[in-house]
Structure formats: C-alpha cells, structure tokens
C-alpha cells in the first residue's frame, strides 16, 4: 500500500451513472473506494456521477485480482448501488455497468458529447419509472403433490403399482415419478408464463429470462406501483397451492432497461 497522498496519475475516475437536466444532491456521498467524495461532472446538459478511485485498487490488473475476492465484490457492488439509489431518489439516472473507470476526465467528456442524443433520449424514457425484480421460487414437492392430486393418469399409475411384486412396483413408481416430473415442468412453465404476462401488462417495459423458473425485471411507472404490487400479491395467493412463491426486489435503478439486451 502506498502511504500518503497519491499522485494524480495513481487515480482514476469511476463513473456510476448519468443524469440529465435534473440533478440529484450528492453532498456527503462517498464513493466505492470508501473515502473519496462523489461529484457531478457536467458536460453540455448531461451530468456524470463520478468519484476518484485509486488505481492501486481499481486499475486493470488490480481490478481483475480484486474481482476474485467475493467479499471485495460484495462491498463494492453495494457501494456502487448505494450511490445510484441516492441519486435515483431525486432524478432519472442511467446506471452504468459496475467497474467503468476513466484515467482522465477527457474520456468521460468525449462519451458525454458523442453519445449525447442517445443518452438524453433514454433518460427521458426513464423519467418517473423504476425497475422491480421478480423471481419465483418453486417448491418441487408441493408442485408435484398438486399435479398428483389433479392428474387422472397419475392416479392410474399409482394404483397400478400397488399390490404388485417388488420389481414391478418399483418400475411402476419410476414411471409415475417421470410422468409427474414432466407434468410439473409443464405446469410450472404455463403458470410462470401467465404470471409474467400479467405483470408485464402493468409495466411500461418488461424483460424475462423466461423458463419454468421466472426471472424477470419490470420497468414500472411510479403511479402504477400499487397496481403492480397488487398483481403480484394476487399471483402469490393464486399460486400458493402449487408451491410457487414470488420474490420481489427493488426498486432498482433501471439496470435491466438500459443495456444492449433489452427488449
């Protein structure tokens, strides 16, 4: 560790996000290095939320090493998120990917100038909207029981296995398990797809890494937050007998709606 004050060449500029004409108050906010003040770098009507970082911790090689330490990652992603959440309370913010660092403010200036149109348009779309994350957790045993109770074929297979010699009964049970497993998968996919559609209907935009295990993000207008929560609560009640539970996280800065893979 270098002692004393670092030279400017040892410092980089960590960028958290970009704001438009509305500016959040950043006084007293500390950056990802745990000590440097977060400030606004202004350029032609856009503002970048920035703090200085020591390259000994955030330079290319150091960063790669540090990313192997989960405790470091956990601390730093939380710090990045804290800065953005503070800002997002007061103004629309475009969240940048973790670990975006410039060696000088020139590079940042160039970005804000060159991408100005696109950045401003996206900021305008995000105004008054927040991201919510929804995941569903499936209790396979309960889902299996729900399938078993309503599926005539399962009852047949179960009855057929009863009172048979051990070997035959074993094969019968295996057949029943396979049958129930396939039906449970079908049912889970059908239910989570329907859930996604109902939630997306309340959202401005939605993205889903869809399969049986719903993992989705919804960009919801603040005015429709209650509607969104109600829809989720209803789904929770309806799906409870199938062993499907929803996990809600957020509100997040709109990470899932500013990258390349949004739809």
């Amino acid at each position, binding site marked *: 560790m270098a002692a004393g004050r670092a030279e400017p060449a040892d410092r*980089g500029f960590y*960028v958290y*996000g*970009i704001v438009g004409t509305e500016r959040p108050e950043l006084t007293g906010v500390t950056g990802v290095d745990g000590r440097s003040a977060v400030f606004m770098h202004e350029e032609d009507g856009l503002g970048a939320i920035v703090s200085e970082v020591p390259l000994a911790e*955030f*330079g*290319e090689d150091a*960063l*790669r090493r540090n*990313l*192997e330490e*989960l405790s470091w*990652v*956990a601390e730093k*992603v*939380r710090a*990045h*998120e804290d800065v953005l*959440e*503070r800002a*997002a*309370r007061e103004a629309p913010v*475009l*969240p*940048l*990917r*973790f*670990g*975006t*660092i*410039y*060696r000088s403010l020139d*590079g940042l200036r160039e*970005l804000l100038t060159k*991408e100005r149109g696109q950045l401003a348009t996206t900021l305008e779309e995000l105004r008054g909207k*927040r991201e919510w*994350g929804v995941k569903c957790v499936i209790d396979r045993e309960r889902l299996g029981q729900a399938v078993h109770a309503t599926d005539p074929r399962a009852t047949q297979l179960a009855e057929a296995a009863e009172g048979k010699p051990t070997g035959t009964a074993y094969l019968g049970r295996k057949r029943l398990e396979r049958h129930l497993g396939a039906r449970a998968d079908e049912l889970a996919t059908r239910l989570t797809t329907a859930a996604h559609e109902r939630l997306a209907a309340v959202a401005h935009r939605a993205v889903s890494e869809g399969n049986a295990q719903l993992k989705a993000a919804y960009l919801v207008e603040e005015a429709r937050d209650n509607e969104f929560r109600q829809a989720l609560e209803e789904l929770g009640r309806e799906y409870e007998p199938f062993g499907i539970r929803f*996990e*809600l*996280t*957020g*509100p*997040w800065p709109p*990470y*899932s709606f*500013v*990258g*390349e*893979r949004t739809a």
Partner: protein
Amino acid sequence: MSSGELVSADPSITLVELVDRLLDKGVVVSGEVTIAVADVDLIRLGLRVLLSSVETIEKQR
C-alpha cells in the same frame, strides 16, 4: 414507500441480484478500464459455490 429501500430482506438474495444487475446489465460505455465478461462469469461461479454452501449449512441445522 421510500424509493431507497430494497424490498428483499435476505442479504444473500440481494447480493446475487446486485451482481446480476451491476455486472451484467447497465449501460456499457468504452471506459478506459472495464470488466471483462470472463471476470463476470468467474464472480457468478464464486457466488454460486458460496450460496450453495450456505444452503447446505442451513439444511444441516
């Protein structure tokens, strides 16, 4: 509710969600230092190992 509080109370869930968002989503710009995709995959792998060991400990209780 206040817009600053995350709903999820489970810190391990929140960490996974954070890593999923901050390292895989968000605006990608040509910073002079950025994180390579391979590094992100490494972190995810590490998180999965960590979380599955936490689950195992909880089940053994």
